[in-house]
């Protein structure tokens, strides 16, 4: 049997890695794109196609976004406290904190 890729160079040959992309899939009309995972691809066009092959095999999507992973800035997990714990106790930020005024409809 033929060996696919059998003629491709020596094992010591330098091998570049494709850049990483993050994939967002929208499941249906009216929903938002949701992060589905990541993949490698040489460029944006092929990233879209790889995303189609990897993440929409069972009819999961109607639209795909791909974003270079480099382009995403993430919050620092170590500053979780400073970032996300401050709302605790600030009940006045919730609508239910306030009592609706009498006689004001549609509130």
């Amino acid at each position, binding site marked *: 049997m*033929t*060996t*696919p*890729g*059998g003629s491709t160079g020596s094992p010591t040959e330098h091998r570049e890695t494709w850049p990483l992309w993050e994939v967002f899939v929208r499941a249906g009309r009216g929903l938002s794109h949701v992060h589905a995972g990541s*993949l*490698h691809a040489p460029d944006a066009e092929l990233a879209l*196609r790889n995303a189609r*092959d990897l993440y929409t095999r069972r009819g999961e999507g109607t639209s795909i976004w791909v974003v270079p992973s480099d382009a995403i800035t993430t919050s620092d997990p170590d500053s979780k406290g400073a970032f996300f714990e401050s709302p605790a106790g600030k009940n006045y930020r919730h609508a239910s904190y306030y009592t609706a005024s009498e006689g004001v409809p549609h509130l």
Partner: protein
Amino acid sequence: MTASDLPGSGRGASVGARVVRPDGAHAPRTPRDDRRGPGDPQDRHGDVTVDEVALSAELAGGEGRAESADVAEYALWLGDDALILSQQLGAWIARAPELEEDVALGNIALDLLGHARSFLRYAGTYDGRSEDDLAYWRDEPGFRCAWLFQQPNGDFAQTIARQLTASTYLFELYTALQGSSDETLAAIAAKAVKEVEYHRDHAVQWTLRLAGGTDESRRRMVRAVGDVWPYVGELFRDEPLTDRLDGVAVRPSSLQPRFDAVIAAVFAEAAIELPAGPMSSAGGRHGSHFPALGYLLAEMQVLARQHPGVTW
């Protein structure tokens, strides 16, 4: 394929829906069971339902039966082209340049296997053979695939060159076959054409990238196009069978202008010259085959022949 899939496999199976409870337990849903609404005082857990997933029929073309030996033979041609190309692409799994490309080629192979099964099922209805009989129990001279589909995988560029020519041809073929007076062939073509359009796109994208990539990738792409080109001619050769099946089959020569136009556009963008050499006298439609086919069939058929009737 399994033996249990054989006759009338166009079933619309459905996966039983399950009730998922907040405690994580899954219970099979039985009719009229657990239909209490949120207002029911007995309902302490809420009733979360999962939509039923309706699986569509695996094979296109329904339960149609081939009316004549000629129609069955034509279905065999198309089924064998798809089957052999699918088997070839399967050999890339776990060996493609990247994991993502493994999945892409595997998806394409599975699409083609679906087309092959639909065509072979239909071909077999004429003389009572199953799709498995046709795939596993015919010897080399009994196959009717064109030589292009029998060309070895070679390197990735060669596989892409074969994919480019094959899927461009198949797209034009299935587009035209949708208008066939044979309802089964038209239905199979209507399902397949959308899938083959994606295969063509995949091959075009890679042709452009390999031709416009490094010196080495370009050298390989140009060589690969030259290697597969002699086998393109056979695809567009009219045969007595296609003449007899006017209105049912697509006349092969009628597909060539569209094929040439698409390939010319891709090659122009990729700056690849159209190879000018002579075309092979390939005779796949008559059962004389490229030397590589025997090895491929041996690998494809060995399991079914060593363990007749086995399912897996």
